[in-house]
């Protein structure tokens, strides 16, 4: 390949899209490394502390789009204290200094300050796309800056962020000349919205394809918006409260009928339980439906709606749909690929779905490859059946609301059921376990889950063996997160080199001790081993006491950037 001019190689590399493939390409030889590096436009950094922004900017001089992930996954469930880290500001600042031509920024679980948003909006004249998922630290003032100064903004997508709402008029900060919007999602905002500004914005955005409204947008505004934007592909309804006999409702029905392109429907953040029938007309076109933010919809309404959704590929729903409702889904949605059933009331012991719903789905939806299922109970028999019916799972996440509940029928651990899943699903990349589980399930996972990349464990296992089976067997493991399981130093230290092949390991409320963590950190300088010491529970003493101090929360990750300098006091990097 030496005799190909660089441009040819570059052109060939253009066809190589995925990050994994491009990483592989760059390791072939120095020439390829060089060319791939300057031609790569989209960079993915799974852990923002694994590498410093200057190095990224230096290597990928053609960088236009970057995806960054910050906090560990368990931060979603309040296991990581606030102020742990994950700040985006240093990245934006470094990129601004290096004159990176940034066009797209996608962040997950990071702390985004208003200052960083302002700096972002002023530093990159071609900036087009901002996607924030599960982030926090900013207010609507930061959004106003983005609206005002990103002249070429196409996409502003806020998913499930914690935004302090100053009820400022950020929407009116979009200049009148701005007509480039393609995607706008502000469903997670809690405060009032300047409704006329919103309507005007929609009116002057002919390319708008995706619009997800917050609960501050009432029905009459929705109706007017739909009239203006019948070309929408993706609609998130904000508030859906209305009087079914009102003129507004009738107008809405008419407006919806014109929206023949809508393929994805979500929202209904405030909903009157009846009269979803207005949407029945677009249901046959839907490929994606997310009603998981709407506990106000009763199951019979849901079912009526779902009976029209023959083409559905993705469904996010609450468990009030019930097992019966899932049977309807199974018989209607033959193309279903992804299903998520969330708990509508996490504390009540009466979740409305059980193993029967899951089995029904597995029988009816042969294309299912991704599931997240919160349920009251599960049985081995059901899991075995599901595995038999759906061997194509890529993501299988089961959450039994009572974390150590055994098989509801036999009272046995659920080892066999999960064993069946990992054995049948050869492409399984992500697995979350729950229920009563012994070391046996980890033996199965180690044996069969050859493609597994991410494993979440809670309240499971009997001994170090469990974790050892996994570490030994799962060659492609990248992320392992464990809580409240009896794995200790023996497991942790069994194969320390493995952690450099992984992105990260989280262990909380396990049996690892400070001594074990220190030993690990000493042997593996390429890892940051962080101890989260809330409430001053631990003392950083040396000596034999270390082995008596159990570590409450440990997070380790491979890194080229060394110890991070922004760690708060309660985080020790060993």
């Amino acid at each position, binding site marked *: 390949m030496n005799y190909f001019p660089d441009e040819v190689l570059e052109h060939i590399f253009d066809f190589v899209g995925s990050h994994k493939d491009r990483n592989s390409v760059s390791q072939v030889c120095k020439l390829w490394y060089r060319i791939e590096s300057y031609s790569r436009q989209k960079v993915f950094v799974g852990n923002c502390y694994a590498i410093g922004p200057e190095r990224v900017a230096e290597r990928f001089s053609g960088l236009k789009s970057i995806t960054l992930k910050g906090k560990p996954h368990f931060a979603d469930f309040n296991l990581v204290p606030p102020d742990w880290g994950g700040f985006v500001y240093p990245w934006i600042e470094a990129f601004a200094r290096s004159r990176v031509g940034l066009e797209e920024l996608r962040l997950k679980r990071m702390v985004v300050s208003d200052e960083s948003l302002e700096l972002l909006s002023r530093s990159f004249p071609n900036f087009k796309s901002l996607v924030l998922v599960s982030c926090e630290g900013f207010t609507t003032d930061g959004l106003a800056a983005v609206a005002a100064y990103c002249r070429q903004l196409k996409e502003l997508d806020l998913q499930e962020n914690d935004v302090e709402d100053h009820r400022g008029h950020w929407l009116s900060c979009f200049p009148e000349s701005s007509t480039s919007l393609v995607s706008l999602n502000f469903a997670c905002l809690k405060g009032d919205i300047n409704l006329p500004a919103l309507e005007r914005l929609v009116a002057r955005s002919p390319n708008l394809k995706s619009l997800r409204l917050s609960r501050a947008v009432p029905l009459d505004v929705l109706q007017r918006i739909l009239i203006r934007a019948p070309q929408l592909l993706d609609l998130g309804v904000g508030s859906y409260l209305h009087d079914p006999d009102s003129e507004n409702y009738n107008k809405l029905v008419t407006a919806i009928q014109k929206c023949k392109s809508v393929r994805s429907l979500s929202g209904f953040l405030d909903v009157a339980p009846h009269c979803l029938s207005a949407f029945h007309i677009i249901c046959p076109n839907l490929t994606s439906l997310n009603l998981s933010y709407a506990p106000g919809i009763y199951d019979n309404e849901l079912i009526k709606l779902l009976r029209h959704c023959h083409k559905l590929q993705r469904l996010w729903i609450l468990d009030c749909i019930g097992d019966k409702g899932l049977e309807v889904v199974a018989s209607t949605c033959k193309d279903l690929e992804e299903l998520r059933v969330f708990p509508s009331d996490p504390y009540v012991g009466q979740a409305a779905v059980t193993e029967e719903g899951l089995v029904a789905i597995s029988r009816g939806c042969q294309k299912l490859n991704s599931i997240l299922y919160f349920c009251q109970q599960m049985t081995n*028999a059901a899991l075995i059946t599901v595995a038999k019916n759906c061997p194509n799972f890529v993501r299988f996440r089961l959450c039994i609301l009572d974390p150590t509940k055994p098989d509801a029928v036999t009272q046995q651990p659920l080892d066999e059921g999960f064993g069946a899943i990992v054995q049948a699903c050869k492409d399984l990349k992500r697995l979350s376990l729950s229920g009563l589980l012994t070391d046996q399930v980890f033996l199965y996972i180690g044996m069969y889950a050859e493609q597994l990349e991410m494993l979440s464990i809670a309240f499971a296992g009997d001994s170090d063996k469990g974790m050892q089976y996994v570490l030994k067997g799962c060659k492609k493991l990248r992320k392992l997160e464990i809580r409240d399981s009896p794995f200790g130093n023996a497991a942790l230290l069994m194969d320390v080199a493995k952690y450099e092949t992984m992105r990260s390991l989280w262990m909380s409320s396990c049996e690892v001790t400070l001594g074990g963590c220190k030993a690990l950190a000493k042997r593996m300088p390429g890892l940051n081993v962080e101890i989260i010491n809330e409430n001053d529970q631990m003392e950083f003493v040396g000596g034999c006491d270390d082995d008596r101090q159990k570590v409450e929360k440990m997070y380790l990750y491979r890194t080229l950037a060394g110890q991070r300098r922004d760690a708060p006091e309660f985080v020790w990097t060993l």
Partner: protein
Amino acid sequence: MMEECSKGSGAACSPKLLDLIPKEMEWAVAKGESGDVERSSVEIRKLELRLGLPGDDEWSLKNTNTAKNINRERDHHDSLFSLGYFNHGHHHNHHHHFHHHQPSHKAGSHEISPQVGPVAGSSSSSVWFNQQQQQQLAPPSSFLQFPTTTKAATDKQQSSCLLLPTVAKESSQPCCTKVGAIDLQQSPAEKKAFSPPAAPPTPANTAVANSSQKRTAPGPVVGWPPIRSFRKNLASSSSSSKQNGNPNKKAATSDKPVEACKKGMFVKINMDGVPIGRKVDLTAYDSYPRLSTAVDELFRGLLAAQRDSSAGGNMNKQQQEEEEKAITGLLDGSGEYTLVYEDNEGDRMLVGDVPWHMFVSTVKRLRVLKSSEVSALSRE
């Protein structure tokens, strides 16, 4: 390796092994027998023999554990026993059914299967079975017996899945009815497979309960269930809107446990000058005027009684009746009192601005304030 075998070349692999696995035999680690500490640790060593930690070349027939590990294992189990972890006196088997994928002929290249038994061929498989038979096993509940000869050869997907459990002859527990709903590949003789063979189900439960007690927190667990915080608040913030509609629906589906079937929506209502509050059911009204009338009826008497008591309680009955005047003008600011409410965001709002349905879905509590106070507040 394993994969090749599973993809249907099962015929070439040694199906004999799986035939050889007697259907009722599965080795298990017996826990829960107080007198059998020794035996269980021996069994644990056998467990090690079979398992051979995946990928670890050091595991072999002879040298399964270092002595240290064995001791640790024993200690581990000892300490568990001493914790009363298991239900002594009941034979509760913690079943570890060892599952084979289609065994590979390439002994040694089979990374994960044990070095004993299937890989080594039939001779050592008989060794394996001898060891099995040494254990006195309680009737098993083995859910999985991974691909057997008959199924494996043909259909990849089917073969890699599950042949369902085999049944020990001792097991005679009937299946739970729930199982009936589930599609199972079974021979009729095996239909009883799922239920735990232990004749008294309680020991199994208690043993399991004990083990679960080890790890279960008594109350709500931090970070469990694993959902983001905003989902935890969804139900409560929208509960009022749920209750708004469909009051007549739930009668027909009374077995649904979901909270959607609450009737009535009671919110607190306090009135200035009246120390005791009331509760009013908003689903009983469908408009603001009706609500206003109800508020009047609720508080008229109380307000008068307050005035009476503050006046020293000297009024006679007739005077009291005269004092009991209607509370009017609650909605338009024209009366002595004005109705306000607190919404789901914590803000205080004047009643009457939004459509009734919207009001009902966002109201959290009501207050009847003196109109003079309301205008004072709005000037802040």
